[in-house]
């Protein structure tokens, strides 16, 4: 695999909380343009991996190489800056801001206006504000919730909140979009619509890292899948192979994998 093809490499990433090892030397490689799935039973360390990747946690050892450069640990805004955007397992929107304002916050990183611009409202600031609003509107269209643009985020339905979170993440112009259980709590129709959305995002050039409980969704969407169990990667391959891996089946205790 050439360096050009690789977007993210995790090298022996380890994290523990007190005496509990949450991640034990996890290494994996994500290629550009793929949808990569990360699955595992509850408490296997999937979200911990996400949090280390996006700088919310500081991993004790190991490191990430993203887009050819080493990631600084413990700095979430820097992770976003180099192009890693994420959503949260338990949706974290700015509840008392409107949907469009939420997405506009996502544009913060890629815009420049400072205090002086805000106070003087000069031409370039006004132009930038207009561009922010326009882009936010486009993104709301893209995820399909533009009718709710001026509703407060906390008043949106569960599925719409998930979509809004994705729109906000996309506003930061990520190279890698990390989705933490986006289908949790969704019904079948909503999950299908989500699948279409994620496929579209990938087609439009954003690599996707997907943590999911819905094994069917992962197997249908992802090009490759890694399985975590007790903080260790026990398997990494295409879905068809992963499904038959005895370690994986054991980890799920004979759960409905197929």
């Amino acid at each position, binding site marked *: 695999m050439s360096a050009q093809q690789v977007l993210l490499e995790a090298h022996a990433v380890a994290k523990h909380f007190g005496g509990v090892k949450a991640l034990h030397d996890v290494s994996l490689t994500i290629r550009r343009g793929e949808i990569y799935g990360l699955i595992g039973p509850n408490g296997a360390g999937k*979200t911990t991996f*996400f*949090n280390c990747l996006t700088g*919310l*946690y500081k991993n004790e050892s190991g490191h990430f190489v993203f887009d050819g450069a080493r990631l600084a640990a413990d700095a979430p805004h820097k992770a976003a800056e180099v192009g890693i955007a994420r959503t*949260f*397992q338990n949706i*974290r929107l700015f509840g008392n801001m409107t949907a469009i304002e939420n997405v506009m916050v996502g544009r913060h990183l890629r815009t420049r206006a400072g205090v002086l611009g805000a106070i003087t409202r000069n031409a370039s600031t006004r132009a930038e504000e207009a561009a922010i609003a326009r882009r936010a509107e486009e993104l709301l269209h893209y995820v399909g919730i533009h009718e709710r643009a001026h509703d407060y985020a906390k008043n949106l339905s569960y599925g719409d909140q998930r979509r809004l979170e994705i729109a906000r993440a996309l506003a930061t112009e990520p190279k890698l979009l990390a989705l*933490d259980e986006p289908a949790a709590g969704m019904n079948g129709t909503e999950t299908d619509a989500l699948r279409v959305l994620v496929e579209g995002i990938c087609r439009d050039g954003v690599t996707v890292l997907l943590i999911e409980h819905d094994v069917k969704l992962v197997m249908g969407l992802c090009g490759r899948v890694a399985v975590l169990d007790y903080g260790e990667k026990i398997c990494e391959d295409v879905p068809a192979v992963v499904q038959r891996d005895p370690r994986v089946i054991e980890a799920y205790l004979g759960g409905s994998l197929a």
Partner: protein
Amino acid sequence: MDTLIQQLINGVTLGAVYALVALGYTMVYGIIGLINFAHGEVVMIGTMVAFTVIVSLAGSGMPPLLVLALGLAVSTLVCMVLGWALERVAYRPLRHAPRLTPLITAIGMSIVLQNVAMIIWGRNYITFPPMINKQIYDLGGASFTNVQVSIVFLAALMMIGLIYLVHRTRIGMAMRATAQNPQVASLMGVDINRVIAMAFVIGSALGAIAGCMVGSYYEIAHYQMGFMLGLKAFTAAVLGGIGNLAGAMAGGLLLGIIEALGAGYIGDLTGDFLGSHYQDIFAFIVLIIVLMFRPSGLFGERTGDRA
């Protein structure tokens, strides 16, 4: 060398007082996350009540120790009621209000208590009548008094009692559970209101005792004394890691020692540019430095953000 020992002795005495007051802050903060700004004023009221009781009984022919004990008991009782009333009247209705709201209320209560005290006891310094025959002991060139010994002894006793209460009794267990997670605790049948009220009552009792100690140590009292004392004690609580009982005790002791040493040596250190009237700045400088390197205080656990 004798300065060192002398300042250490003074520091431990002062630290014992800070620690007792700090416990009141840390218990309330640990359970409901409120900086109870009025706690310093509760301590002041404790001193004032003890003063009134002692002065009015001083001529009655009772043995001085009994008078002192009565003063201590009455002031503790008054402060317990005061602490309970504060929580019930001022803070409980605001439990779900925005974060700053109860803080402003606390500041308001602090102003109210201060001015009530000023109306009752006047705006001048009050001389605290010495009830114990002061005895001075010598230790390697430094000296300490029986008052200091009693302060440290009593403070230690109180702290042991509190630790026993929190770790060995039902109400203590309920308090710890509430501090961890109020919702779950209440689902488990813990009466949250009672637990919170208890934290205020116990904290106020400790505060009253600390107030009496301050009064008999410095032999003066003033309606504004609670403010600085409260501020330092809160600093001590933060220093030790707020919400952590052992931390408050250690933080108080540490702060007392740092202050005493600082006051004793600042002149030498700065070539007499800064004198001992800068004593009050040590608490804050130490606080800022500690928080820079240990954001959760010296003994606080680091709680990461949960994603």
